[in-house]
């Protein structure tokens, strides 16, 4: 990297005490006072060649798009794997090349890809990178170089993961939970190269993510613009921030369990491996504890669920508020709920282990903490729907996806109460009820938010609108289709069909499950193909979409208020913006317009009866 660093020649004085840009009326110094800048200007690196501008790029926005595209690529792989599984389940004889080995490899790779490489990377790496600097009013992430490395680490992790499809023995088929001893024994497909590559890939992911996560946290804590207090940040930022904090504390457990399992596999240590009899022979392992792995895994795994869910909560709050033209109800409570859920999520992990053979007395504790989390979660739902009450709702694609999210999430949340309550969980755990539950709550619900968010922010990123008509088709196919997939699965779970079953044979359950399985498979195929509408919409809109102009949704938050649309490197041109209010001043009584942007100084809206800061 030989390019020199451009000296930024914005003089520092340009943004100290005399504030108000273009103040028209009689600016009263007092009400518009904002403290002068504390932090010196960032001295950004500007790429010159194609490689430094687009490939090894240090602009968080581009890194965000890179993350987004890579994550979507893995997501498509995960989707195709889910089709193959569904084909096997719905029409067992139809695709002869799917053997039990393959099925379990597909299940594993599908689960791991969707949770870690798709959703986590998409929300934090994708949306986080793009939106954090814009929404808090920074020029870029605080350590752009580290941020760039973070993406490339992730990229390598994805490559290693994909490579495992092509090694002898194929990818691991241990289930996404990778429980030992089974994960590294020959009875499981891909127990040699497959599992090793998976563990290496996860470790790389954790390292890469740590680099990115440090950036997100510090940008939010230490690089906000003038006037941007924590309680004036959009909820999107709160969601991403809390999720990143969770990730920084939860991923260590994953890293440690990966290291220990790799050693168990390669050096035959016995961390997780007790004495084992295989094919008539006692293996060299002795005295390890398989349950220890489960504790480590779920200490990561449960917060991981919220790492996916919290950014979705945050983003959907912002989308609802903008498109319902009303302030989000109970902002402060929303913030505390996000932080509270995040904190509590470290104390509930063993609800995944009610039937794992751990000391049964833990059940009482973990059932209680789990149901305590239900309270802040329910409050968030109330606040979303109260926001809709007496609002002015634009029924566009974005709003549809938000409503779809609420319905799906409430459904998944309620089934969560079943599974958290230990006595109810015992018959239901490891059945299709669990599959239905987590797909609703952390599969479909966040996906709805992602799609809504793409429709919402596409104009910002590309400068063009997506087609509304195609968008609505896309929504209805996805929403109804997803419900057709997962709603019947609750029933399958109630009658006791276990998960991770390659086929049911002539079990007495099949009679009522066969038809249902065929139906689910058809729905899954339709949902998958309907995503082509989405892709078509994106590709064509890039060329022929309606030009968006500035702030097409009339939103208040900072990302829409950049001097250039789409925002350029450095985001804010000459001068950093100054913030006077929270981002939810919609339909304030007395104001001329139905929105007041965050950069509007109080002196310009003297008559508006603003309640919140």
């Amino acid at each position, binding site marked *: 990297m030989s390019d020199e660093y451009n000296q930024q020649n914005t003089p520092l004085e340009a943004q100290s005490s005399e504030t108000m840009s273009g103040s028209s009326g009689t600016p009263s110094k007092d009400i518009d006072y904002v*403290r002068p800048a*504390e932090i010196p200007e*960032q*001295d950004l*690196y500007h790429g010159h060649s194609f490689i430094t501008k687009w490939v090894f790029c240090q602009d968080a926005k581009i890194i965000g798009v890179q993350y987004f595209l890579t994550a979507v690529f893995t997501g498509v792989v995960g989707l195709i794997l889910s089709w193959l599984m569904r084909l096997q389940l719905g029409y067992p004889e139809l695709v002869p090349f799917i053997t039990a080995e393959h099925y379990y490899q597909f299940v594993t790779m599908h689960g791991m890809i969707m949770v870690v490489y798709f959703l986590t990377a998409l929300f934090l790496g994708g949306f986080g990178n793009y939106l954090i600097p814009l929404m808090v009013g920074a020029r870029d992430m605080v350590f752009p170089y580290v941020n760039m490395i973070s993406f490339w680490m992730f990229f390598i992790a994805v490559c290693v993961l994909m490579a495992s499809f092509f090694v002898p023995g194929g990818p691991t088929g241990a289930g996404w939970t990778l429980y030992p001893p089974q994960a590294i024994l020959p009875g499981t497909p891909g127990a040699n190269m497959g599992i090793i590559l998976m563990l290496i890939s996860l470790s790389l992911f954790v390292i890469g993510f740590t680099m990115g996560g440090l950036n997100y946290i510090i940008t939010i804590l230490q690089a906000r613009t003038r006037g941007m207090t924590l309680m004036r940040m959009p909820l999107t930022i709160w969601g991403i921030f809390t999720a990143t904090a969770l990730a*920084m504390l939860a991923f*260590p457990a994953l890293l440690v369990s990966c290291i220990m399992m790799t050693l168990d596999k390669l050096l035959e240590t016995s961390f997780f491996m007790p004495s084992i009899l295989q094919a008539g022979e006692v293996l060299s392992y002795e*005295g390890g504890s398989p349950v220890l792995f489960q504790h480590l895994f779920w200490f990561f795994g449960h917060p991981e669920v919220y790492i996916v869910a919290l950014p979705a909560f945050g983003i959907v709050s912002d989308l609802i508020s903008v498109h319902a033209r009303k302030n989000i109800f109970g902002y402060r409570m929303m913030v505390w709920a996000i932080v509270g859920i995040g904190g509590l999520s470290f104390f509930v992990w063993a609800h995944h282990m009610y039937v794992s053979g751990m000391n049964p007395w833990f059940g009482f504790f973990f059932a209680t903490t789990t149901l305590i989390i239900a309270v802040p979660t329910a409050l968030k739902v109330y606040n979303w729907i109260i926001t809709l009450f007496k609002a002015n709702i634009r029924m566009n694609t974005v709003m549809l996806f938000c409503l779809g999210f609420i319905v799906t999430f409430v459904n998944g949340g309620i089934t969560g109460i079943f599974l958290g309550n230990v006595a109810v969980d015992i018959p239901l755990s490891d059945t299709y009820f669990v599959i239905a539950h987590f797909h609703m709550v952390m599969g479909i619900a966040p996906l709805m938010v992602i799609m809504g968010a793409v429709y919402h922010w596409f104009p910002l990123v590309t400068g063009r609108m997506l087609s509304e008509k195609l968008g609505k088709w896309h929504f209805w196919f996805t929403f109804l289709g997803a419900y057709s997939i997962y709603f019947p699965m609750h029933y399958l779970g109630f009658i006791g069909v276990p998960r991770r079953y390659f086929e049911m044979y002539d079990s007495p359950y099949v009679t009522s499950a066969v038809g249902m399985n065929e139906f689910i498979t058809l729905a899954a195929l339709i949902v998958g193909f309907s995503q082509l509408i989405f892709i078509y919409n994106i590709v064509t809109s890039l060329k022929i979409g309606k030009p968006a102009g500035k702030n097409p949704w009339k939103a208040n938050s900072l990302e829409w208020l950049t001097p250039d649309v789409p925002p350029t490197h450095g985001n804010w041109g000459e001068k950093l913006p100054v913030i006077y209010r929270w981002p939810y001043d919609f339909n304030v009584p007395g104001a001329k317009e139905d929105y007041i942007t965050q950069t509007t100084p109080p002196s310009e809206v003297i008559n508006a009866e603003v309640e919140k800061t």
Partner: protein
Amino acid sequence: MSDVKIEGFELKPGFKGMAEDTGSDQTMFKGVQWGKVMMWIFLLSDTFVFSCFLISYMKGRASTVVDWPNTSEVFSLHVGSVPVPLLLIAIMTFVLITSSGTMALAVKYGYEKNRKMCGWLILATAIGGLTFVGMQVFEWSKLIHEGVRPWENPFGAKQFGSYFFMITGFHGFHVSIGVIFLFIYAYKTFAGHFDKEKRGWFTTMKGGYVEIEILGLYWHFVDLVWVFIFAFFYLW
């Protein structure tokens, strides 16, 4: 670094001051450089890594089927023909803690802009760290010589070897990284990069002696982790 001056903002002491900082705009930790916050948060994350290792170790040790070896015998060193328990480890710990001291002094001289003193002290710290790693290599080879392996252990439970090599190895890796950076920073100090406020490689901000303090944080952390490893492996 004491009294930071921030225009238009008064830093107040105690809990109230903290709440006020949190509620203010721009930064949460007033006057603290980005790099320093980053190091703190990274260390918090790393604390979780080491906690996971040590908790697993406790669980593993508590539930082995074979007895845990007698640590004061396994780790003893023969002086002449008398076995002295914990001799080597005491020296190692002493060296590492001393290097923490020299690091703290380096930070102090750095802020006093005493380039020479600062540089020499960083170098001393680096050499302390190197000595520590060297002694660790010695201890590993001694144990390996006696037949302890990650997958087997002639003195008792297998897990002893596994956890010992894994955790001290992971810690030794941290120390080694630290030593590398200490050497780089010693060079940077002598070359006057911090006096010239030369911009660091990873950042978009001007450099300064605060970078030495950041490295110092890491070094003290590694040292602190060692104290825990020492207590859990050698004294338990």
